[in-house]
């Protein structure tokens, strides 16, 4: 009938696993060596090492874990090591494709050679600019050009003159008219007038007209020959130009070809440049002259790259210093264009124009031949970036295409640059949930990211890990140029690490949080004029951090103290218990007591969760309440119907409740209401319960205890106050020193319980009672009262079910 375990609260030492500074064999962290490894991430590190070393398709990495663990730092450190061992990737340029002007050609050059090639091409153009005009200035060229032009003129005029001469021989003159030529009969070396013509005999007139008609035909034939002769002359001029500039151009380009003889594509490009220069030698004669382009009389600027000579420029897309190793690129804004590169446009008189010089490199280009690090969430939230990433990884080539073009939205003239082969390892850094969602919903993802580096959030706490933790502190302090930390300070940091892990037996490896705490502790050490960061500075930093974030907690506490929120911390009442909940505000969490009440009556409704009915309760909370029905029926009403309607409510809860950590409190309130056994209001209880009445572990146990402690402390600790927690949570306790001290002074208790019976015994101060071998609860026990109450309900229900009472015999025969 007694519950021997129930009365034993936890000893102060069990409430906080302290770190003894004396166990740390150093005075300050300045004595400690840097910790080159990664604390507690052996699994993730091995995965990274494997992923980085695996030179096969699809072995890209997904580094997953929560923020602040140091995923980026660890990944980068490993990539840097590997990158130095790898060959420096090639430089890439875009050049004009003379055969397909809208498809710029990609050229690969050895690392460091792209700039040289660009300069060489610039020099070539400059040399041609001086060399070609001087070739055109030579007497030889002028003479030959004059010969061609003169020949054309001569042939043209001779053709006409010969017809004129022939006509003259027939007594007919070739006369120039305003827009051509006409034939007229002559008389005494002069054109015949109409009178003279009419004076001729009809036969003569006819003869003249026939002769003129024949001559006209001949002249028409000669005129039709002119375009052909002109074309011929133009062809000759082109040939001449090629011959004249050929010597200059060939010499210069051959020189360049010799310099790049090992690079086939470059040599082929130079050959096409050679041909193009010969075909467009005229462009070099007066490249800066000529009329400026205008539109409606407004001068239109002509970009250098659009000029005929701009075609010989080289757009160095990406270049590397020779021997610099493989690149590691982190793109923190992974938009579609920032990944695949973009084709910029110039606005000209309201239209957008582009050319190969306006192709700009993206992260793929920069990381080609090396490593690309991206934040998974950022890639997934940028429109089309994820698709672009996968497409590039699958096709192993970079296809620079603007979004507008890709979606068919851009109506401007576009370019289709030749794709560049892609060889890069991608490291995505992101949350676990994204990894598992991608695994579930994107069939390509498992193919492309075969290696998952799963980062731990904490490590086991042991003396050797305490020392490693101290070395990590030393490393961070040196890297961040902070003061060294003495062992007292390190001990406090270790304790805080355990508190952050939410487990006295573990240490959090959230490096960002540790770094922040170190920085803040350093600030307080500096303010106090200390050379070394001590325990007091760490405490100050933690207190200040808590103070900065605790406005809402204090406001809630104030409402409780003033009685606006009804929470008792003394006395007793049936059907009412103090539950505990955790409020999470960003990174700050605090515990808060809540009044839970239960009312019971006869009925068929079972246990009604008012939170659920009011849609203020989450599914886990509803599940917890439904378990209670199972517990009640299984424990007390095996052989009779559960004829109960009970209502459970989180009083003054206006913001919703989730989780099943109050189910044990709710069960206690329910049993108390059934047994009409008052529960101590000086205690609070947390824990979930199963259908057998076992109390199960919950989260945020430290915050919950401290939340009730703070309220009790504000009202004055009486020595009867305390918190009932699941025994399984005892190992998680890392309570504030203040709480531990109160327990030490006997002014506060923490009771670990394994079953509802234990909890009920503590809360009611009465034995809850266990069934004897005959299956009966002891007399006066809470459980017996519960069972009797439920049995009474069931009997009443059976009585109702039997129908209306039978009319008594002695009433028969009596007049109505």
């Amino acid at each position, binding site marked *: 009938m007694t519950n021997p375990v129930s009365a034993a609260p936890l000893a102060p030492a069990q409430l906080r696993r302290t770190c003894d500074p004396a166990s740390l064999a150093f005075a300050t962290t300045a004595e400690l060596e840097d910790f080159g490894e990664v604390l507690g991430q052996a699994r993730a590190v091995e995965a990274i090492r494997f992923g980085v070393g695996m030179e096969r398709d699809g072995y890209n990495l997904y580094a997953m874990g929560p923020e602040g663990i140091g995923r980026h730092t660890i990944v980068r450190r490993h990539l840097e090591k590997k990158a130095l061992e790898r060959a420096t990737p090639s430089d890439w340029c875009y050049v004009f494709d003379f055969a397909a002007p809208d498809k710029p050609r990609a050229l690969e050059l050895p690392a460091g050679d792209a700039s040289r090639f660009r300069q060489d091409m610039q020099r070539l153009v400059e040399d041609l600019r001086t060399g070609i005009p001087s070739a055109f200035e030579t007497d030889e060229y*002028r003479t030959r050009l004059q010969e061609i032009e003169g020949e054309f*003129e001569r042939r043209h*005029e001779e053709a006409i003159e010969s017809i004129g001469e022939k006509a003259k021989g027939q007594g007919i003159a070739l006369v120039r008219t305003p827009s051509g*030529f006409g*034939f*007229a009969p002559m008389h005494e070396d002069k*054109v015949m007038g109409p009178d003279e013509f009419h004076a001729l005999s009809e036969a003569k007139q006819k003869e003249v007209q026939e002769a*003129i008609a024949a001559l*006209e035909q001949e002249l028409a*034939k000669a005129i039709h020959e002119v375009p052909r002769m002109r074309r011929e002359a133009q062809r000759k001029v082109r040939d001449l130009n090629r011959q004249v500039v050929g010597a200059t151009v060939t010499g210069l380009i051959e020189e360049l070809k010799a310099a790049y003889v090992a690079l086939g594509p470059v040599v082929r490009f130079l050959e096409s440049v050679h041909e193009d220069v010969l075909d467009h030698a005229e462009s070099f004669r007066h490249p800066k002259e000529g009329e400026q382009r205008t539109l409606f009389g407004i001068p239109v600027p002509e970009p250098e790259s659009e000029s005929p000579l701009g075609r010989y420029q080289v757009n160095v897309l990406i270049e590397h210093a020779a021997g610099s190793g493989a690149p590691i690129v982190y793109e923190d804004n992974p938009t579609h264009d920032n990944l695949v590169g973009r084709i910029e446009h110039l606005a000209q008189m309201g239209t957008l124009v582009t050319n190969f010089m306006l192709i700009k490199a993206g992260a793929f280009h920069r990381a080609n031949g090396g490593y690309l690090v991206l934040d998974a969430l950022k890639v997934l939230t940028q429109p089309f970036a994820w698709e672009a990433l996968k497409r590039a990884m699958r096709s192993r080539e970079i296809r620079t295409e603007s979004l507008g073009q890709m979606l068919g939205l851009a109506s401007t003239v576009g370019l289709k640059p030749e794709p560049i082969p892609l060889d890069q390892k991608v490291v995505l850094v992101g949350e676990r949930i994204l990894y598992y969602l991608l695994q579930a919903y994107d069939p390509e993802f498992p193919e492309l990211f075969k290696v998952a580096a799963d980062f731990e959030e904490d490590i086991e706490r042991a003396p050797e890990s305490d020392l490693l933790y101290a070395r990590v502190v030393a490393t961070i302090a040196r890297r961040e140029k902070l003061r060294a930390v003495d062992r007292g300070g390190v001990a406090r940091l270790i304790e805080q690490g355990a508190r952050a892990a939410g487990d006295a037996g573990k240490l959090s490896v959230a490096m960002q949080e540790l770094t922040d705490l170190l920085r803040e502790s350093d600030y307080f050490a500096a303010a106090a004029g200390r050379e070394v960061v001590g325990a007091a500075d760490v405490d100050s930093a933690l207190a200040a951090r808590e103070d900065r974030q605790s406005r809402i907690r204090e406001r809630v506490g104030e409402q409780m103290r003033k009685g606006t929120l009804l929470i008792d911390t003394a006395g007793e009442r049936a059907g009412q218990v103090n539950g505990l909940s955790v409020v999470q505000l960003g990174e700050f969490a605090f515990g808060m007591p809540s009044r839970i009440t239960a009312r019971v009556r006869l009925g068929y409704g079972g246990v009604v969760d008012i939170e659920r009915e009011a849609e203020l309760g989450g599914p886990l909370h509803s599940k917890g309440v439904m378990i209670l029905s199972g517990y009640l029926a299984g424990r007390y009403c095996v052989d009779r119907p559960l004829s109960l309607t009970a209502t459970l409510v989180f009083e003054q809860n206006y913001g919703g409740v989730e989780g099943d950590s109050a189910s044990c409190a709710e069960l206690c309130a329910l049993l108390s209401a059934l047994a009409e056994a008052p529960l101590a209001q000086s205690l609070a209880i947390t824990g979930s319960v199963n259908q057998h009445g076992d109390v199960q572990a919950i989260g945020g146990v430290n915050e919950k205890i401290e939340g009730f402690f703070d309220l009790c402390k504000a009202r004055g600790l009486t020595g009867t106050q305390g918190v009932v927690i699941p025994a399984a949570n005892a190992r998680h306790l890392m309570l504030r020193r203040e709480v531990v001290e109160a327990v030490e002074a006997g002014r506060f208790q923490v009771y670990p319980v394994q079953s509802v019976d234990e909890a009920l015994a503590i809360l009611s101060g009465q034995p809850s009672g266990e069934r004897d071998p005959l299956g009966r609860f002891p007399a006066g026990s809470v459980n017996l009262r519960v069972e009797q109450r439920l049995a009474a309900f069931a009997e009443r229900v059976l009585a109702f079910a039997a129908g209306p009472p039978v009319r008594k015999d002695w009433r028969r025969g009596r007049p109505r």
Partner: protein
Amino acid sequence: MKIRRIVVGLDVAPHSRPALEAAAALAGALDADLEALFVESDEVHRLAGLPFARELGVSSAAARPMDPAVLERTLRAHAREARRALAEVAAPRSLRWSLRVTRGSVTEEIIAASTGADLTVVGARRWTPEAARFARGAPATIIVLPHSGRLGGPVAAICPVTVAPEHAMALAASLGDALGGGLTILVLAEDLAEAGAWCEKAGDLLRAMGRRAGLEIVRESQPEALQAALERLAPRAVAVVAAPPAQSS
């Protein structure tokens, strides 16, 4: 010598426009008056009066009947166009200019108009017998512009030894300045010794003026040699230098 009056002969031929521009450039450079003469060829009028008169387009070779009234209108339009072009080239140079329209033989009208002028400018496609007729017929110096296109480029001056070297050099220098480009003087002579002496004197004068020019001797009796020289030099302008009016009269 001072050139005060320049006559430019224009007709419907396409090379009239370069002649006009050259003449305007010369007038501007030499501060001379510009007199333009637009000649309507009487041969065209007579042709248009014939019952079967047809005109073949210069580039299309399409034949279309000629109508005297249409021709009149066309020629008037050409004359108006010549006036507009003249005003256009004269305005930026602030030239004093005039335009006269006549009807007759183009060559004879221009030769007649050039009487008393210091310089006569006409256009021609190349050095043709007709161009030579101008050179012989005009009492003053004549310039022939062989090809259409912009000014600037080599200038050839045909200069008989009968003209005093001082006069020839002064004129050639003026033309060189006005037209730009290198100057080659083709000295027409029969007596080589006489030509040599002339060239020597001309060279001295050029040096004194601080100028450079090529000097070539061409036999007057061999027009084909002159033709060959002109084809070789391919000048933009050919100046035929004659004795100044005062000397010739």
